């Protein structure tokens, strides 16, 4: 075409005009630490595995999850999911049901028989793990993945520790527990059951282990002095729960009183109900607000007819198990104080759920090792005790006592044991800045309230040990996963690519995210304002 001078121009020729020179601020892509990940005691990359679950690729999600935690099916049942407590979505409608999706993935893995892959190559190092509870098995799993030879010594008859002897069936069915334990054994972990370690130093020498991780847990029930007649029947919670795993179930009678306010007290009371007690009464010296047990468990217990006497202590156990109760009041500090006001309570049996102590006898005479307040002191960063090569975790070290924390200890210890074996030290991984709700543009998330997991109907809950809480269906799990806001990390929604008035965003393709074309970016900041998940920020241009 014969174009008239100046009046008619060739298409797209404005590329010659580099408008990037107008810019005073520049957008940059960032990654922020989502609150769920920051919160998880087991150090799971929750957002990471939800990302795969969103697209229905459950195996990828499961494999991503189990990089950090080998027990999704167990976690999905017993984890107290503090992650959901900090989820940003709660500020829009309700928190993402992370725990329910985790359980779905765990169950899906069991159903499909997904297995862990054995290590590529062996390091030739041998590590001893004492105790087959959550912490120990977690450590065994990670160490094995790293190619170390792992031997687990467990005093008890079965794997699982407190997960088996502390948590009732109706919360954690045993087939699930067995399956997730077996999956680790299948990685080539040596297990010795009924093998109580009494002298760790000697055991290390005998087995010529290069390092050891101690996770024997806390199994010795705390006693409280209650003057009692011989006739009165007093048991401890740990014994009761443990005996549930044996052949003959404990005889608790029709009226069972449980003394304590922790999760164990709740478990025992609910167990008593299931064993046929007409009345299961918890006696607790403070108020419900101050009860250490998790609220949803208290709620479920009350639903099942468990009764609680708040602000009460047991003074003595008289004839035919008549208990004398003193009413308490809370002082300014919130501590209970006696009132001198008494009442009585009839009980066929009294179960004490006042916490447990650790059996530290296996550590006698280990040089450098310190204990304090009945637990082993460890370096909170490496989990190593005062004795080189000797690491510890779970209920036997100072920390909150729950499965998730224990699993986290196992993972952390494993990574540092590995470093220690290689004669190196693990540099602390730099953490991204937190992804707060203020970083988000919630407009872009469609309205989608949380899906609740089904609960077993009341009749069967109180009469059987069937699992109380059901799982999600595939559809629900997908929906729930897709409620994730991907706080602080690009999920390739194409907003920045679309909303740029200057076409200054380059789309690199699936999984590759985006890149700014600074030749043309004028620095208007629309991409930052319209990024749903706060994964872009403006920085001043330095002139």
């Amino acid at each position, binding site marked *: 075409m014969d174009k008239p001078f100046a009046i008619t121009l060739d298409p797209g020729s404005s590329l010659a005009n580099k408008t990037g020179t107008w810019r005073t601020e520049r957008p940059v892509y960032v990654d922020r630490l989502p609150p769920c990940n920051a919160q998880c005691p087991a150090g799971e990359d929750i957002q990471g595995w939800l990302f795969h679950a969103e697209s229905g690729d459950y195996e990828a999600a499961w494999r991503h999850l189990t990089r950090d935690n080998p027990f999704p099916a167990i976690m999905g049942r017993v984890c107290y999911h503090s992650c959901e407590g900090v989820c940003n979505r709660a500020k829009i409608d309700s928190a993402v049901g992370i725990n329910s999706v985790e359980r779905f993935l765990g169950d899906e893995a069991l159903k499909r028989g997904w297995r862990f892959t054995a290590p590529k190559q062996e390091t030739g190092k041998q590590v001893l793990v004492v105790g087959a509870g959550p912490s120990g098995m977690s450590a065994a799993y990670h160490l094995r993945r790293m190619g170390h030879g792992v031997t687990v010594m467990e005093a008890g008859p079965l794997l699982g520790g407190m997960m088996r002897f502390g948590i009732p069936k109706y919360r954690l069915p045993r087939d699930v527990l067995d399956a997730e334990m077996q999956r680790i054994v299948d990685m080539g972990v040596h297990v010795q059951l009924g093998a109580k370690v009494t002298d760790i130093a000697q055991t290390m020498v005998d087995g010529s282990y290069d390092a050891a991780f101690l996770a024997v847990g806390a199994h010795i029930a705390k006693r409280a002095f209650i003057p009692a007649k011989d006739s009165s029947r007093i048991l401890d919670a740990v014994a009761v729960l443990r005996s549930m795993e044996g052949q003959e179930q404990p005889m608790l009678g029709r009226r069972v009183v449980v003394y304590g306010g922790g999760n164990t007290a709740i478990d025992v009371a609910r167990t008593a109900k299931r064993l046929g007690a007409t009345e299961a009464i918890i006696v607790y010296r403070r108020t419900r607000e101050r009860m250490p047990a998790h609220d949803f468990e208290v709620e479920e217990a009350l639903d099942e007819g468990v009764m609680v006497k708040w602000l009460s202590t047991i003074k003595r156990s008289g004839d035919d198990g008549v208990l004398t109760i003193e009413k308490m009041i809370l002082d300014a500090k919130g501590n209970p104080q006696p009132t001198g006001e008494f009442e009585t309570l009839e009980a066929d049996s009294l179960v004490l759920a006042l916490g447990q102590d650790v059996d530290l006898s296996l550590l006698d005479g280990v040089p450098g090792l310190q204990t304090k307040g009945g637990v082993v002191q460890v370096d909170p960063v490496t989990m190593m005790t005062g004795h080189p090569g000797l690491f510890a975790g779970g209920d036997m070290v100072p920390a909150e006592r729950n499965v998730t924390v224990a699993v986290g200890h196992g993972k952390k210890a494993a990574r540092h044991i590995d470093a220690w074996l290689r004669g190196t030290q693990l540099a602390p991984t730099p953490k991204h800045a937190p992804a707060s709700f203020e970083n988000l543009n919630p407009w872009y998330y469609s309205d989608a309230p949380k899906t609740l997991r089904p609960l077993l109907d009341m009749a069967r809950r109180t009469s059987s040990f069937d699992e109380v809480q059901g799982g999600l269906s595939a559809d629900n799990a997908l929906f729930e996963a897709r409620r994730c806001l991907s706080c602080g990390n690009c999920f390739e929604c194409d907003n920045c690519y679309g909303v740029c*008035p200057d076409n200054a965003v380059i789309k690199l393709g699936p999984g590759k995210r985006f890149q700014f074309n600074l030749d043309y970016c004028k620095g208007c900041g*629309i991409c930052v304002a319209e990024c749903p998940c706060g994964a872009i920020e403006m920085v001043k241009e330095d002139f």
Partner: protein
Amino acid sequence: MNAPVKFYQTGTFTVGNRLLAPEQRSVQASTERSNSLNSGHRACQGCGEALGARYAVDAAMRATGNRLIAANATGCLEVFSTPYPETSWQLPWIHSLFGNVAAVGTGIAAALKVKAAKAGLGQSAVRVLAQGGDGGTTDIGFGCLSGMFERNDDVLYICYDNEAYMNTGVQRSSATPYAARTATTMAVGAEPGAERGKGKNLPLIAMAHQIPYVATATVADLRDLEAKVEKAMTIHGARYLHILVPCPLGWGSASHDTIKLARLARETGIFPVFEAEHGEVTAVTKIRHRVPVDEYLRPQKRFAHLFGKEVAAQAPAAPAAQGGASVLARPGAGAGQGHPEMLARIQADADRNIRRFKLLDEPEVH
């Protein structure tokens, strides 16, 4: 207009979504999009018109398989896109005058019709787009536009409405809203800003022509906008699309708030987003999270006098091509008290829109 695909992480509010089926994906999400308005144009930072134009023209390009010719009225869009020796357009494009773009479109359509006839075709595969700003559409170009409508010529007309003459330095047009401060409706006197009871609603006037298709849209809802362009391209005859495109320079808003303001215009009910066929409203985009008009007005310096705020002395930086910066440099009048009574009127107008176009979902009856 198209409901969010349920259960998706972001519904369809974002530009793209990896979880969507390919046929559900937006034009703008595609690396294949034509970028009809290419990089290097001289629009201000955060220009809503540049964005709206690329959204609309790219969508029209996809709908027509790139068989599209565009005519452009004089105005920002023309000036910032085609200063000799560079053009940002990547499709056949012509600029003639300020007030005649609809007629130029008619001429192009007529020529294409004859070409098709000579080729023995029923109708031309090449389609015509005529576009202009609110000044070129509602004022100086209105005669030609009405003529094009009345003859039902096969032209899609798109008005990019930024509610004033921005290219000449932010003067009042018949699309300038009540109370808005422009260079010719200064924020001084008893009733600062644009006077009440003036201006015209072009979408409704277009509907009065009984043309096959009329729709409104904003740069805040890409998928809705694209769907409307696509639909318009399935229809022959005169079609009108009115797109709200915030102007950081003329509105005195932050350049990064362009889309947010368009969204608020809709969520307040100030700018109803709807579709009409043959003069009859057939669909409206419901308000999702209703907000009071203050939220929309407050971030805009052109309304600062309503809140009794002094307008910041410096205006958003404007490139040489646009001469409007000075307008916002003047301090707003009505400082101190503000004008709650004017705010109340604007809220009442928004509420009327909500009733008139049924912008809120009826509460469900149980």
